[in-house]
């Protein structure tokens, strides 16, 4: 129920069996290897090259997988990601991994087909552009380079304007002599360009040419040797051959998509091998034996040793880690507590001195989350959604922890929401009033029940709040927020004391913990009276409490400077300690006002949504508007407030709670294991 105790394990095995032993350790996944010391006769393995090579194979498989996903997307239900991975036995895994080279060749095929596909796409585009250039000339039945016969001169080219045969001849006639005959033909014309063929007697060629030049005549840049139709057809044939290649490559990829599962297996297989070769760097070998050292959780050690000794020729030694070893940290908690482990991990893993904060934190996490989200309807949705994922689909791993966490947060939200009478805002009293004309639903239910279930009716007869409604009484919730904050902070201080006692620092635990708690307990009633008005706390109590606070303050002054050598230092540090305690705790406690602020935020916006939905006068119109506004508005409100609540709950844990006792700086346990994405390898029975 806390941090797992780690042992150091050293396994020595004969070289012949070393591969099997190492594979076995990887499947077990309970040992984190560390760099074995070099000793005479023992030298480390260098496997970085191999790891790199395997990494390349892995990359090829992953690329192939992403290609077939693009060409032949897999149809799978949304819930598929919630189901567990297909299981496969160790012997089956080994058998299948023999055939992995074949799979790898499929992957290379897929990658090269993908390359063909993209290459052909490019060349088709290029060819189509070329074909477009030749298109205007297609009706010309001589080659574009045609210069004329022995007696005639031909001009084939473009003019930068839209001409017909007639307009061209009219344009030419003033530029050439009366007697010069020109035969023009327009091959094609568009708005700003005409492709023309002009023929004249050879003797007049220069005159005609200069006339044409005046009109802006230009020879085509890439004239054909054959009639343009020939080139057009040739390009067309090229395009269709490229397209055929394209289609073939694409079909091949789609056909190979059938091997998807095989490729996925290969991905996992290469990943396992890559991890293995990367970790083999930590191992030392001599001519006959292989030595590996690592950390293993204590409760797993015995079982592991037994299995190793039964199957292989090994010598195993188990020792306790020294003070100087950097021992990795692994949590082990019941699911209720384990759910918040990722939150702690996100802050920092505990150091060697730290105690596991998760058990205490989990309770506060759920409760504080609930107050801030504070709507039973939203909580119910969360709990139901996560409950389905949890019980129906049996999620595993890290996802399971997250689902668990939101499940319990949802339950806590229902609890607080019911206390504050917020079910999708004020939808119950509002519907009762707007549709049925019942303004005092809370009072009526109370009467029907025969006892006062809904105490919120004191402020508002329609309220269904079991405790009270924060909107009607924010000061009350503010004071309670501070109270919850003080309890949370005290829990942190007590954990800090436990930590110090574990380190046999009993004086430190007493001096750092007790006085400050006395001070806070003593001042709290005064603060409550200032915020809530005189009489919030009975005068007889607050009168006594002043003395408690005073005692706390004196104790802080006396003890905070206990490490200082001389009396003036002791007193100075003591006074500084008092100032620090007072200002630090004030800030910490005020920070819990966010419980009220975020709670109000959810509730008020939910109420606005319901108000908007019930604006019209007629009941039918109200209903018609309420349904879409209700669904859309509450989804948006829930999403925004979920994120806000998550962030602020984390902050209260990290900044206020952890600051009281938690150091962090540990390293999480990362065993050599089969870190697979598509399959789950099971040990042989």
């Amino acid at each position, binding site marked *: 129920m806390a941090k797992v105790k780690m042992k150091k394990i050293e396994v020595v095995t004969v070289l012949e069996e070393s591969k099997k032993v190492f594979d076995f350790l990887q499947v077990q996944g309970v040992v984190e290897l560390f760099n074995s010391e070099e000793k005479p006769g023992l030298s480390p393995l260098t496997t970085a090259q191999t790891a790199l090579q395997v990494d390349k194979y892995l990359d090829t498989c992953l690329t192939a997988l992403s290609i077939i996903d693009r060409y032949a997307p897999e149809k799978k239900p949304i819930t598929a990601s919630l189901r567990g991975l297909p299981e496969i036995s160790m012997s089956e895994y080994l058998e299948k991994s023999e055939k992995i080279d074949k799979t790898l060749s499929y992957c290379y095929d897929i990658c090269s087909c993908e390359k063909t596909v993209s290459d052909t796409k490019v060349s088709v585009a290029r060819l189509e552009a070329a074909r477009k250039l030749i298109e205007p000339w297609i009706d010309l039945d001589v080659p574009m380079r045609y210069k004329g016969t022995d007696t005639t001169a031909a001009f084939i080219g473009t003019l930068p304007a839209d001409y017909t045969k007639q307009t061209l001849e009219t344009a030419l006639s003033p530029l050439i002599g009366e007697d010069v005959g020109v035969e023009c033909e327009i091959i094609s014309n568009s708005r700003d360009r005409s492709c023309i063929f002009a023929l004249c007697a050879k003797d007049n060629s220069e005159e005609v040419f200069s006339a044409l030049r005046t009109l802006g005549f230009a020879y085509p840049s890439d004239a054909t040797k054959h009639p343009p139709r020939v080139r057009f057809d040739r390009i067309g044939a090229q395009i269709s051959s490229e397209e055929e290649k394209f289609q073939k490559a694409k079909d091949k990829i789609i056909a190979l998509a059938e091997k998807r599962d095989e490729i996925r297996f290969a991905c996992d297989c290469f990943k396992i091998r890559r991890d293995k070769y990367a970790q083999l760097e930590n191992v030392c070998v001599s001519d006959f034996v292989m030595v590996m050292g690592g950390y293993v959780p204590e409760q797993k050690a015995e079982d592991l040793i037994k299995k190793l000794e039964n199957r292989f020729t090994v010598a195993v030694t188990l020792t306790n880690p020294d003070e100087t070893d950097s021992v990795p940290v692994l949590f082990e908690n019941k699911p209720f507590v384990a759910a918040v482990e990722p939150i702690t991990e996100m802050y920092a893993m505990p150091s060697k001195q730290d105690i596991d904060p998760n058990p205490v934190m989990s309770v506060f996490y759920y409760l504080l989350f609930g107050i801030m989200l504070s709507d039973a309807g939203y909580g119910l949705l969360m709990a139901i959604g996560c409950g389905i994922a949890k019980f129906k689909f049996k999620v595993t791993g890290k996802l399971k922890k997250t689902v668990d966490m939101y499940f319990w947060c949802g339950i806590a939200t229902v609890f607080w929401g019911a206390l504050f009478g917020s079910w999708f805002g004020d939808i119950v009293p509002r519907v009762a009033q707007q549709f049925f004309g019942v303004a005092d639903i809370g009072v009526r239910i109370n009467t029907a029940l025969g006892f006062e279930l809904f105490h919120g009716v004191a402020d508002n007869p329609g309220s269904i709040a079991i405790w009270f409604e924060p909107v009607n009484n*924010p000061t009350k919730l503010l004071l309670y927020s501070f109270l919850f904050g003080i309890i949370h902070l005290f829990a942190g201080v007590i954990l800090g004391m436990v930590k110090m006692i574990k380190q046999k620092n009993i004086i430190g635990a007493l001096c750092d913990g007790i006085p400050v708690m006395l001070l806070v307990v003593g001042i709290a009633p005064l603060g409550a009276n200032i915020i809530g008005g005189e009489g919030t706390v009975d005068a007889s109590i607050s009168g006594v409490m002043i003395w408690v606070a005073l005692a706390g303050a004196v104790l802080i002054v006396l003890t905070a400077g206990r490490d200082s050598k001389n009396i003036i230092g002791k007193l100075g540090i003591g006074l500084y300690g008092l100032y620090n305690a007072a200002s630090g705790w004030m800030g910490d406690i005020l920070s819990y*006002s966010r419980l009220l602020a975020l709670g109000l935020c959810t509730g*008020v*916006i939910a109420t606005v949504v319901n108000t908007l939905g019930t604006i019209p006068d007629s009941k039918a119109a109200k209903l018609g508007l309420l349904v879409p506004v209700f669904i859309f508005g509450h989804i948006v409100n829930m999403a925004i407030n979920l994120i806000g609540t998550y962030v*602020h709950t984390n*902050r209260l844990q990290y900044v206020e709670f952890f600051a009281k006792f938690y150091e962090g700086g540990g390293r999480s346990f990362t065993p050599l294991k089969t870190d697979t994405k598509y399959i789950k390898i099971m040990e042989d029975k």
Partner: protein
Amino acid sequence: MGVMFAILGGVLAAAMGGVGSAIGVGRVGRAAAGVVTEDPSKFGKVLILQILPGTQGLYGFLIAFLLMNNLKLGSAEALNLTNGQGLQYFAACMPMAIGGLVSALMQASAAVAGVGIVAKRPEESGKAIIFAAMVETYAVLALLISILAMMNITSTIA
């Protein structure tokens, strides 16, 4: 006239909070979009950062709404305020208006820097969120003072 002062306060709270949040969310969104072009799988992480400076707009809205509720605007029993009372409401709205605007902008800067963390060291993205969330405290405190002040003013008037 008094009512007008009060409403002006509510309008400023909603508007300044909204302006701050709009600028802030926009700024972080731009940075976030840059990260997503490189690595679409980081969408979820940067989205949380983007939403963080958006809460000030909500808080401002909340104050404006509570003010309308307190004044019973639009109903038969709407409060009739003196100039002094109106100015009291106006003052009560100011912490949220000013605090909301400035904290949204500052939170956006922290969140933009946090987007950088997500881009380079995605495993530390939780810390990026906390850095940005630290700024939020002051928006929450401003919200709280505005709410409490408004409640107290209403209770003395009624």
